[in-house]
């Protein structure tokens, strides 16, 4: 059994957290923001009465939910430089770092999941709310923006946060494009010092403590924000 060197963890703490965890947390927060905005738009599209729009959104969401995240990460890692070149009208694929590639990937991928949550949230708002909005002379955008979405959002906050914890866990998959997120940093030290057991055990413990505490807080919040009907 002997021969473990747990000091390797203490020596690499600054690198693990300042480089790795910063990457993971920044990616999570930005992708969450982008994902919720894009996901809400998708949800509104899915609920639109104009069929072609709801079909396009539905196809996008189902496509994203049918293929593995790892494959989606590979797809975007390859596609983002081409899309960037197309947007910037460059003749050749532009150089995009692992971070921005991952950010685009997670925003686009998680939007499909946030969309389903927001769709349920919008559908949970009483129909009369929409009618009263129109009766007051508000248009579609105003009814959505001032009446329906705030309520939908509030009802769904615990689920959106739970999905964000899943997103935080999923960001560890950027390992496959060799990004230095928390797991990537742990893995680099593990392979450099040949301390795989110590580093991966530590990484698991850190993820566990963070995700367990967050889901505990979400549970507490859930009881607090529940709308009294």
């Amino acid at each position, binding site marked *: 059994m002997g021969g473990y060197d747990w000091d390797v963890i203490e020596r690499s703490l600054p690198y693990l957290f300042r480089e790795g965890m910063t990457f993971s947390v920044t990616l999570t927060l930005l992708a969450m923001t982008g994902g919720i905005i894009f996901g809400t738009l998708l949800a509104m599209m899915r609920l639109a009465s104009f069929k072609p729009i709801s079909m396009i959104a539905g196809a996008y969401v*189902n*496509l994203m*939910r*049918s*293929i*593995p*995240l*790892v*494959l989606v990460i*590979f*797809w975007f890692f*390859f596609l983002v430089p*081409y899309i960037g070149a197309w947007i910037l009208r460059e003749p050749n694929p532009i150089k995009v770092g692992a971070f921005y590639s991952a950010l685009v990937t997670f925003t686009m991928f998680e939007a499909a999941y946030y969309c*389903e949550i927001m769709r349920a949230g919008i559908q949970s708002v009483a129909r009369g709310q929409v009618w009263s909005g129109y009766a007051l002379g508000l248009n579609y955008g105003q009814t959505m923006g001032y009446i329906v979405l705030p309520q939908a959002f509030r009802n769904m906050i615990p689920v959106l946060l739970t999905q964000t914890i899943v997103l935080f*866990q*999923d960001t*560890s*998959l950027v*390992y*496959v494009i060799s990004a230095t997120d928390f*797991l990537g940093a742990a*893995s680099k030290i593990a392979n450099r010092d040949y301390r*795989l*057991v110590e580093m*991966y*055990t530590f*990484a*698991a413990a850190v*993820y*566990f403590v963070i*995700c*367990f505490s967050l*889901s505990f807080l979400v549970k507490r919040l859930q009881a607090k924000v529940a709308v009294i009907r």
Partner: protein
Amino acid sequence: MYKLDWSILLQQEPGGTGTYLNYLVVGLGWTLVTALAAWVMALIIGAVVGTLRTTTMPWVVRLGNGYVEIFRNIPLIVQMFLWFFVFPELLPTELGDAIKQMPPPWSSYIPAVLCLGFFTSVRVAEQVRAGINSLPRGQRFAGTAMGLTQAQTYRYVLLPQAFRIILPPLTSEFMNVIKNSSVALTIGLLELTGRARAMQEFSFHVFEAFAAATVIYLLTNLVVVLFMRWVESRVRVPGLIAAGGVQAGH
């Protein structure tokens, strides 16, 4: 710019096993045998843990909750590394070495199945628990009133109904195992996604490789959905609203 060439799928892959298309389809085979083995494991453990969490024994419930929290709060890829790198080191030396020295696909396949099996088992356990709790209390009382023991009540009254109710979410979970098995490429299992990436590295035809893998995943999903819809219609509980009406969450 990038030139599309779909005929690459019919060209020989460098390993000499046949065309690239064949190479990917064999990858799908590995995806499925990994997912199915993990699924059997997840169903058995998940059914036991989920059931135990609905019993009236406080410490058993707490143990079950702890089990669920551990596997739910660690990212899948980290769990994959734990099974692949750490687990063999914790075993007695001979056994650990035996696992590490297994011939190539198996040395990744076994840890991948263990990892996915345990990871999915907690999600199955959550569904089983929810299914049992969704049954009217009267079902349990009726079982007891008939003179059944607690075990018999579960076996003959609660579980047969619960499993049929949770079939749609279990279908989603099965599709999740298929998708999640792609994470096993990080420990060297050449399943569908892993082979699509390998094909891209050999042939430089990235788009064709990933597009082919995407289409294969979509077709697999379609087959699973159609099959499960058929199973659901066969085993639905007569008289419940859910009979035939509720769609799986995918």
